[in-house]
């Protein structure tokens, strides 16, 4: 028997030809599944490619505890969920929430470390205190937190950060843009290596404020501790008062 006749007989002249769609409807039920596909340190684009279109499935993934192993994946998923959500998305306190967020709003009771890292748009509201590296490398959008620990807004390039209480050490380290407002006080070495952007502190600042800065503007309403502007090469530092050994060009605020 000819093979063609066998096939014709089997299909009875009905030949449709949809191809196997390799990427559609992949079964991703857990962060482990997602990690199988994209690895544990993926790019946002890779995660976006595999993330379920079904919102309930995405919610299921976000509700899982990522532990240390899958926290980057969880961070991307939190951003994707916030971008899809019409209302502000309330999330548990975990590291990397809002990683590379582009739009939408995330609400956090407390925040872990690396919240809002590399975010490009949208808004993150932290009702409690945030951990280390808040808004690190952010390029756009805004973060409002009641307080934060060290290295907040490190290497910031754009957007804004508002800390309603006190900030830890090294606020705005290596900034190249963006605006930071601290309504409380900040620790030592705020504005370290700052090249552009602005830092406003309503309270006091620790020692070595604006150390090695080459651009941008720092304003301290209270007192800047010792050695403000130490070896600074450019930019402006203004303070209500400043301690001993401050750089010559540190200005007194009116």
């Amino acid at each position, binding site marked *: 028997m000819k093979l063609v006749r066998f*096939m014709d*007989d*089997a*299909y009875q002249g009905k030949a*449709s030809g949809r*191809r196997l769609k390799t990427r559609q409807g992949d079964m991703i039920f857990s962060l482990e599944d997602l990690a*199988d*596909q994209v690895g544990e340190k993926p790019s946002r684009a890779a995660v976006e490619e595999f993330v379920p279109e079904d919102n309930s499935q995405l919610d299921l993934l976000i509700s899982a505890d990522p532990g240390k192993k899958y926290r980057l994946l969880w961070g991307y998923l939190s951003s994707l969920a916030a971008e899809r959500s019409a209302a502000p998305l309330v999330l548990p306190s975990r590291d990397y929430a809002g990683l590379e967020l582009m739009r939408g709003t995330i609400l956090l009771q407390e925040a872990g470390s690396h919240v809002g890292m590399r975010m490009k748009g949208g808004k993150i509201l932290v009702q409690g205190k945030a951990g280390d590296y808040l808004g690190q490398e952010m390029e756009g959008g805004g973060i409002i937190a009641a307080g934060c620990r060290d290295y907040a807004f490190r290497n910031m390039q754009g957007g804004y950060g508002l800390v309603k209480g006190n900030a830890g050490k090294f606020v705005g380290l290596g900034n190249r843009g963006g605006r930071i407002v601290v309504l409380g006080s900040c620790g030592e070495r705020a504005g370290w290596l700052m090249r552009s952007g602005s830092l406003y502190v309503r309270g006091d600042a620790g020692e070595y404020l604006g150390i090695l800065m080459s651009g941008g503007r720092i304003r301290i309403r209270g007192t800047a501790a010792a050695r403000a502007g130490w070896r600074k090469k450019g930019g402006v530092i203004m303070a209500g008062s400043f301690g001993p050994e401050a750089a010559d060009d540190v200005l007194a605020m009116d």
Partner: protein
Amino acid sequence: MPDPRKKIQLLITSLEELRLHVGRKDLAVGKQRINAQLYFSLANACLRGRAVLLYGGMGANKTTLVNLLGSSFLSMDLDDVEDLMVTGHPEQTEEKIVGFLDPRQWTAAYAGSAQVLWTAWAQSRWKLINEINRFPSGKQNLFLEILQKRKISYAGQLCRPGDTCYFATMNPEFSATYSLDEALLDRISACVPAAQPDFLAGLLLTEREQDVRDLASMLPRFTPQEFSSLPENVAEKPLSSQVELAILCLLRDFTLCERAPSFDKTQLSAAKPSLGLCSGCHYHNNPEAICWQVDEGLSDRVRQDLRAFCRAIAYLLDRDADLLVLKAIAPYILWHRVTPLRSILERPPYFGAGKLAYVAELVEKSINRTMNERAEMNLIFSRAVDGELPVARAVEELSTFDDPIARLDFIPHLEQMR
């Protein structure tokens, strides 16, 4: 001779009326619902050289049902049929199961070849291996040789009972059971769950006042001619091209693997989908592809079993052996032979316990895909094989189909034809 199918229908009715079998109708063939345990056992009685394994907890009527059917088909007393079965336990030996050397030949003046006293089980054409998983693994190997064969050898002598119906029963894993070897499982044609009676069935059983033995004598009896004619009657049921094609594609869907030697998953030993073989493969996690979802490929025995049971069930139901029959029976032929990925099987709705349902879903997926989506690529391949289409063009066209069968079966075959 009248068609024995009518007697089979009478047997089914009698089993129900006498409250000897009251199982739930758990198998849907199109709109018709039947009891899988009963119909697979009957289908096996209509075939020869196949083995059906009834799997379930204690007291689920597995052994009794096979013996009752044996009593009816062989026209024997239930007691005599029960004497034919062998039951698994660690002290069973080949001598107790198959036969032993006649010791009298060494005491008498005898110069001929060795004489073997064959057991009733070995000589019977209705072989029940009761509690097969209570045989230790080494002793299970004995059945590798016996199952599906027409003769049994021992001490250089042959016993030729002829075409035989093989049945086996087993319980789930208990402390005194042993797991079954994959090679033995592959020789078992179909595995059917036997459930405990449900509420209404339990109520019906309370109406049974006579002993099973007395009731068994009231079942219809088959003549030897009728019993012998059953395989021929089944063989007369034609299989449509659709069913043949769906069976072929089903086997290839389970067996093909891009990373296995010769693209054949049955070649794998240490590397398996469950051990990370498929990580990074572009078929991995694609729900439309089946290859990554089960560890094992399927042997050609599966194809033979699918064809045989498709015909037999169609014969019993007096209907065409079509895709509906294939979809209904295929999960029972496959599920004991494959190990699905635990990460999927343990999730809802399977919860680690719904292996049969999961395999049924894979079967449905493969058959639907073959009938609805593979027509174009199958026709391209057919035309190229028949010389109606240039091979180079067929390869080019087939390369646009991201289907394992097109990529791993059709294109390599056509490239060899160039």
